[in-house]
């Protein structure tokens, strides 16, 4: 057999896919590993989001908005905060919960309650994901 005949032949032989009996098992195992990896990835992202959220809330609460009352930023933040609280108060009024005064001293308490609720939701999501994994 000459090299001219042999080279195409060896290419053909190598290109033939062997028939393996456990092909379906191989595919199923790989897909299970892909699913598992995906869940772990989701779990890790949730955990990172939770930690990041908690840090952001903590930093936001500790930020001293009254440090320099004359800056545009401080005034803007104050205006936005007042608008948000006003909107929330309107919502509470429409729900018949107008007695809760967000504009008063309980505003910070409401903020913490909301932050706690968000954190609890994230934690519940993380727990559910971990149960799925």
């Amino acid at each position, binding site marked *: 057999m000459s090299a001219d005949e*042999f080279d195409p032949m060896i290419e053909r*032989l*190598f290109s033939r896919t062997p028939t*393996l009996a456990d092909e379906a098992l*191989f595919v199923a195992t*790989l897909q299970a590993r*892909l699913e598992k990896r995906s869940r772990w990835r989701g779990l890790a992202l949730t955990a990172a989001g939770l930690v990041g959220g908690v840090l952001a809330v903590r930093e936001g609460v500790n930020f001293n908005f009254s440090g320099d009352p004359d800056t545009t930023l401080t005034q803007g933040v104050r205006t936005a905060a007042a608008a948000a609280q006003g909107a929330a108060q309107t919502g509470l009024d429409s729900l018949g919960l107008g007695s809760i005064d967000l504009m008063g001293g309980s505003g910070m308490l409401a903020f913490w309650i909301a932050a706690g609720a968000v954190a609890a939701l994230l934690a519940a999501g993380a727990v559910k994901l971990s149960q799925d994994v």
Partner: protein
Amino acid sequence: MSKSLRDLHDVELAAQAAAGGRREYGELVRRHGSAVRGLLRRMGAAPSLADDVAQDAFLQGFQRCSEFRGQGTFAGWIKKIAARLYLKRVAREARYVAEAEADEAAPAQDQAGSMDLDEALRTLSETERVCVSLCHGAGMSHPEIAAAMNLPLGTVKSHVKRGLDKLRARLQPVAADGRSLHVG
């Protein structure tokens, strides 16, 4: 109407897999899993090791799917990943210290008289077998093989040539009376 997975081309499946489509990637695995496992076995991996490396290769392929843009075939792309992973595994286990002696198996012919590449490959030394498999099975160039195996380019060329010469001698058609035909 959307096409079923089986109707999609490898490039389309790979694009969807790159966007996180695990079902689409599963179809690619179904299409090319056996080819990758077969290549690794031809390179000398035991079946369990071949399956293990093939699984790792496909997992890595899923993460790197966005790198495949259809320049070659998906099979070729994933085979190269698998071959490199196998070489790393082998290097880690220091199995290249000594080359295995080629056994003197009988000329390879299956029951139907067709040429059995797998049997013939077993007559090559381990390095020849890997080099030939990488070259003709994984479609790697000699410089790519040299880089992957950390061998000089000339050495790789020699191994491929010697391996092919041995394969040619083994795989040559057998005449009706059982005598080998002349090797050209």
